[in-house]
């Protein structure tokens, strides 16, 4: 290919042309003449070739990003379902735990009451100040206490096993959340890939984004309190702030 600029014939080209003519290669001679006259054409062809390759690559990228289509139509709705599952499971676990605890509270209260009832006579016995009728009464109370404790401790044991088992949500929800995190990462990569295919840089917006807040600055739980100076770290911080306001 000629790298000549602007249609001037070089000595090499002239010699080559004479050689073609002398050896009767008319076609080649004509081609050379044309090339000398229109050097721009070959550059144009090179440029078109480059663009075609780019277009081809971009289309290939788009085919890769059909994954993006899957993400939008299948994976993200699926992720919503997964996260709803997390809400359901954690709520169930909280309620199961509270069911058990609420059943345990009155049992403990009953045992505590019976112990309080037994205690005065028991102290008398310990100090050898108990008379016979009191002793009989104490025996009856202790009998009740022993029976209650025996029966209810079995029940409490079962209820505490319920509390234990209610914690199995952590494993399941942990796995589900991890999958959603992977999905979010994949969406992010695909979007960056698309920006790159369109020649837009994903750099430059790398400064940490401000958290989105709603009315009255609501933001929900702060997950990075230690990295922020606009939030309190704990209840002591709240109390200090309020007392500095004269609370």
């Amino acid at each position: 290919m000629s790298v000549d600029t602007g249609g001037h014939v070089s000595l090499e080209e002239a010699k080559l042309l004479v050689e073609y003519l002398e050896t009767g290669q008319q076609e080649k001679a004509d081609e050379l003449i044309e090339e000398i006259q229109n050097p721009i054409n070959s550059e144009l062809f090179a440029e078109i070739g480059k663009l075609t390759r780019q277009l081809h690559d971009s289309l290939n990228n788009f085919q890769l990003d059909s994954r993006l289509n899957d993400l939008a139509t299948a994976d993200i709705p699926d992720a919503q379902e997964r996260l709803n599952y997390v809400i359901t499971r954690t709520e169930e676990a909280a309620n199961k735990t509270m069911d058990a605890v609420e059943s345990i509270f009155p049992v403990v209260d009953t045992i505590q009451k019976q112990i309080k009832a037994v205690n005065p006579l028991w102290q008398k016995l310990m100090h050898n100040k108990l008379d016979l009728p009191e002793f009989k009464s104490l025996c009856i109370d202790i009998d009740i206490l022993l029976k209650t404790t025996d029966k209810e401790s079995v029940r409490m044991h079962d209820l505490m096993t319920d509390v234990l088992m209610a914690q199995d949500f952590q494993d399941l929800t942990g796995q589900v959340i991890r999958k959603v995190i992977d999905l979010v990462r994949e969406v992010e990569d695909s979007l960056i890939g698309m920006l790159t295919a369109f020649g837009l840089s994903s750099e430059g917006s790398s400064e940490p984004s401000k958290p989105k807040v709603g009315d009255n600055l609501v933001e929900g739980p702060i997950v990075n309190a230690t990295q922020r100076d606009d939030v309190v770290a704990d209840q002591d911080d709240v109390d200090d702030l309020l007392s500095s306001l004269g609370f």
Partner: protein
Amino acid sequence: MFSPESALDKNMKVLVVDDFSTMRRIVKNLLRDLGFTNISEADDGSTALPMLKEGSFDFVVTDWNMPGMQGIDLLKAIRADANLSHIPVLLITAEAKKEQIVMAAQAGVNGYIVKPFTAATLNAKLDKIFERLG
């Protein structure tokens, strides 16, 4: 964690406002453990406000971030209503921006507990609130 010596009237009517039923249940259990028996529930400010206007509530425990009417707006509405303005309001919330705590203080909150919290914190704040009110 009991505070039996407190001169608190344990029969006082308490309204617990939170959009999560589990959190309402936790707060109710803690209050019951402290001896409160007369506890009602609402799931956001716009449900709570009519209840407050109708019933003679003595104390409000509310979350901040709820759909519908937020806790801070409920607090402002209570303070703006001559019939309700005397009711002490305790915020229990995950909202932790200093600006918001100042906002709540200026709106006339009686106590501010940041989630996650403990039973001991709730007990201490209740004592403080009612000690102040005499």
